């Protein structure tokens, strides 16, 4: 057991995303030139290659684009206590899609198209992950 994978918190292009998550805020970069909001964060806009970016707070609302329930711990026992767990792709209302977990999923009813909202998971390994919960 080597602990769960954690993002590189020292990457200059992505650190503000993780710092906001630690404050329980979801922020994404927005291009000052063309207005594109994009994910994952990077130093230039993938739309127009503009280098002037701002961090924009997201509404935190979105739609379940797809998901899978993982039933086996892959490779080693890192995820053995978590299975089964849900990996989802969420489409934020602002447009970008991101991959995340779904907390307390009701597998009998979980469906693509479900409305979801962001919440935050403070991990013992010293990182906070944006995750989502289904809203009724």
């Amino acid at each position: 057991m080597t602990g769960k994978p954690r993002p590189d918190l020292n990457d200059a292009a992505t650190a503000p995303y993780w710092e906001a998550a630690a404050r329980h805020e979801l922020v994404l970069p927005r291009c000052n030139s063309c207005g594109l909001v994009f994910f994952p964060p990077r130093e230039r806009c993938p739309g127009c290659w503009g280098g002037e970016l701002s961090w924009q707070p997201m509404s935190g609302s979105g739609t379940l684009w797809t998901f899978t329930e993982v039933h086996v711990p892959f490779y080693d026992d890192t995820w053995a206590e978590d299975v089964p767990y849900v990996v989802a792709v969420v489409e934020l209302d602002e447009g970008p899609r991101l991959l995340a977990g779904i907390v307390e999923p009701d597998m009998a009813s979980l469906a693509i198209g479900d409305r979801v909202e962001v919440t935050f998971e403070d991990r013992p390994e010293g990182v906070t992950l944006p995750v989502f919960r289904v809203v009724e």
Partner: protein
Amino acid sequence: MSVLDGIAIVGVAETPIGKLPGRSAISLQAEAGVAAVAAAGLAKGDIDGVFSFSGYSQAMMLHAARVAEHLGLRPELAVVTDVGGPGTHHAALLNVAAAIDAGMCTTALCTYGENGISIRRSGRGRAPGTLTGGEDFEAPYGQIAMISGYALFAQRHMHLHGTTSEQLGAVAVASRYHASLNDNAHKREPITLADHQASPMISSPLRRLDCSLISDAGGAFVVTSIERARSLGVPYARVLGYGAAATHHIPSQAPDLHELGGPVAAARAFERAGLTVADADAVYIHDACTFSVVAGVEALGLCVDGEGGPYAESGALALGSECPVNLHGGMLSHGHAGGVFHLLDAVRQLQGTAGSRQVEGAEVVVAHGNGGVFSTFSTMVLGRGP
């Protein structure tokens, strides 16, 4: 006119496939390489180019230089391609063709293979999720395996098109049937749809029998000029059309199903070949999971978009149909060590050496599929030479 018009695949070979304790990936590639050169009627001294990929079980820098060193070769070019899936081997053909055209090589050895089983037993396997590109934004959520990435798209296909687990099961059953005809397949015992439905869920909606195997295996092919191939007097395959597409890297950044690169790559390849899928006598689809075949038959135009499930269920994949799919058994049953075996078996069909799974008189065979999680697509339309 393209440099690809000038090349011929003259020899193919694969090692035993399965659990091969104590075998390094490089030793499997070398074994396949030596056998492929012999299959082409050539000798070590004829090889003056090496093109390869380490695979991921023992990922390595400058891998082609290692292959050359291992086999005692000092070629002008030792080149790695890593496009993902079949694109890796197809792009090697493009590189060989360019090298031959540039006078930098006359006859190239291309080697692939992994030791995905044995590397784990050795305790030297790579850390999970370290090569996927999702280290920061996907692995922390437990998205660390390719198969759960594929599951995301299988789930969405089911949602959009009504595809069923039973339809995916039809792909698994057909693959195993073909593997039962192949003496070198990793898994040969026939399976039924009930076996598929009873196999445990791995990453919903994909069950164990929806997942490709992990195998220790090596595969290799030898490429030379059409002129040289003719003088050798061996049957060979030639390139009629090659097309590709790259849309994203990590699963969350994929476009929606209908915008993935598969149909684009296929259309480019068929247009360059001046052919359509109706001209294909067999196709080989990179089957990381059963759903990959559903997506593949749609992308190639064997059925309309969204109807890959019913197409698989109709029996259209099996030997004896108009355009059988994955006659060697695919990665679902023949073996998975990077995916080169689809190309090798496509060449065998065109050489007329595929034995009990031979499509009689095969003239056009297509190899197609994706790397990553539908990240890159590659389609290679091959024809029978001379």
